[in-house]
């Protein structure tokens, strides 16, 4: 079953699929038609591979945002043998942008945390298109701390354009709550497995992202700022989001190169939105394999491994040379301090 929504670069794939379904719909296919079907099938596979091997960073963003891309609730349905949802942050409410609960993955009992963007308009409005408020981050941390108390490993699926930028979110301490999650996740002595399944939007993603392992799906991205936000600031207009996307180097290959992620999880041919089940199988296999590797580690070993994982991220020189000579400061620097 092919998706309803078409990305511009998917057009040749859809055309071939139409052609194929026409051929296949013939009731008494001649040997010639059967031969054509075989040819078109091969061509289709080749086309998908070619298109998806050559996506640039901005195309990847579009795949990551595909409305039919599997989301946290789809994965819960497809990979968990059981899911017991746990609601609420005990302070303000129950943020639907982050789903939390006990789950069984094969033989493993885990705490499952995942950002949810929603599919229908109603769902999307309920969870602000996957943009969590402070209560969402607080809920996630509460459940993680609960998991740590009972020695349950934690699985975090990241999929958010960013934490919600709103008046209420600021009033309720968006910055503080994310900061607190970063610090407290560093202290949980159980395995934490983080996977960016779609959009890894800035602090809103990192707020549930301090893992022993951090992975991304093949067509997911993980960025310091949204391409639109970056374009608006540095290129002065959101219409340059494609440029910003390419400049930010935030897709799998670069994330591996910078040591941000441990692995890039392959997606089915043509992207996760074309085959939820196959995607879920890959994701589950990766999570289970990572769990198996982490479970033998003691609490202190897990904490040390997670610390070192983040500790070593950063690129700089250590120079031994004369101090930088300063120009005469302008009034702007001396008084305002901002540089534009």
């Amino acid at each position, binding site marked *: 079953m092919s998706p309803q929504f078409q990305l511009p670069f998917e057009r040749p794939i859809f055309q071939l699929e139409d052609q194929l379904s026409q051929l296949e719909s013939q009731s008494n296919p001649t040997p010639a038609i059967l031969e054509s079907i075989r040819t078109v099938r091969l061509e289709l596979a080749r086309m998908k591979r070619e298109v998806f091997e050559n996506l640039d960073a901005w195309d990847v963003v579009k795949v990551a945002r595909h409305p039919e891309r599997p989301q946290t609730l789809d994965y819960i349905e497809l990979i968990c043998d059981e899911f017991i949802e746990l609601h609420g942050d005990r302070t303000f409410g129950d943020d639907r942008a982050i789903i939390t609960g006990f789950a069984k993955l094969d033989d493993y009992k885990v705490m499952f945390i995942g950002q949810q963007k929603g599919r229908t308009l109603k769902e999307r409005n309920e969870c602000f298109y996957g943009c969590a408020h402070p209560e969402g981050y607080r809920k996630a941390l509460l459940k993680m701390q609960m998991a740590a108390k009972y020695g349950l490993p934690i699985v975090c699926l990241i999929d958010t354009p960013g*934490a919600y930028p709103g*008046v209420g979110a600021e009033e309720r301490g968006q910055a503080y709550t994310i900061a*607190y999650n970063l610090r407290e996740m560093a202290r949980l002595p159980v395995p934490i497995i983080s996977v960016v399944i779609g959009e890894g939007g800035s602090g809103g993603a990192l707020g549930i992202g301090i893992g022993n392992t951090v992975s991304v799906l093949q067509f997911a991205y993980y960025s310091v700022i949204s391409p639109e936000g970056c374009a608006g600031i540095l290129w002065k207009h959101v219409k340059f989001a494609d440029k910003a996307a390419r400049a930010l180097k935030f897709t799998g290959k670069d994330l591996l190169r910078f040591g941000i992620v441990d692995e890039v999880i392959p997606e089915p041919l043509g992207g996760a939105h074309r085959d939820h089940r196959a995607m879920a199988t890959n994701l589950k296999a990766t999570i289970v394999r990572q769990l198996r590797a982490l479970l033998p580690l003691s609490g202190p070993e897990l904490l040390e491994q997670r610390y070192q994982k983040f500790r070593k991220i950063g690129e700089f020189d250590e120079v031994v040379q004369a101090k930088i000579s300063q120009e005469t400061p302008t009034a702007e620097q001396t008084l305002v301090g901002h540089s534009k």
Partner: protein
Amino acid sequence: MSTGAPLDAITSNGQMRPKRGVPDGLWIQCESCKATVFRKQVEKNFHLCPECDHHFYVPTAERIAQLLDEDSFEEWFSELNPKDVLGFVDSRPYHERLKAEQKKTGMRDACTVGRGYMRGRPLVFATTDSAFIMGSMGSVVGEKLTRAVEKATELKLPLVIVSGSGGGARMHEGIVSLMQMGKVSAALARYHEAGGLFISVLTNPTMGGVAASFASLGDITIAEPKALIGFAGPRVVKATCKIELPDDFQTSEFLLKHGFVDRIVSRPQLKQELVRIIDYCSKSW
């Protein structure tokens, strides 16, 4: 690190204000009350407006002079120099931008860390300076702060970080910048567990990824009056919510009202307040 250079007259948005018959730089206009005030008087008064107490920007060297005992600051890790890890180019290549910012500010990057004394009390002290690419956090800022926190843990010293970061995590270093938030916060987790006292001082502006990491993790959080502090930029919030923002939105006073700041302290009182708090918490190790 000295800032003896002359100031010029500027307006609130940093534009030069022509002034006939007065030598350049003698007078400045307060961006808050619009009064024209004598520059030297502002500088002598902790960079405060003599009319309305507006808190002007303070360069790192003067911040150190204001808060630490004379000549007591020993800078650490000054050899760390930023790198253009992404090969990032917007209106100009990032490596060129870095050189220009370094020349402009005399600093290698936005962050300065080291050990100093506050009325005889030893501590680890760090600042982020909004003059250097908005005080944003890239690898060097993240690494220096992490090392400073690790040193404070090892030496069992209190930690004071004065943040001035309008830029949050630095875009030009991409995802590597974002991860600095996790790195510094993890170091603070260890410092916290060891019993260390961290006082976070928020100055104008402290936003984005800096606000959403170390700057919010103080045992005690102090803000200078009327500083801009928050997660999302006010323009983004306005565009998202499509409502008028409260007058005091994302100010120190707003954060105090909503419970995210312990005290708002005026700059002339800051050193005294820090010392008093440190003395209350000196048995923590």
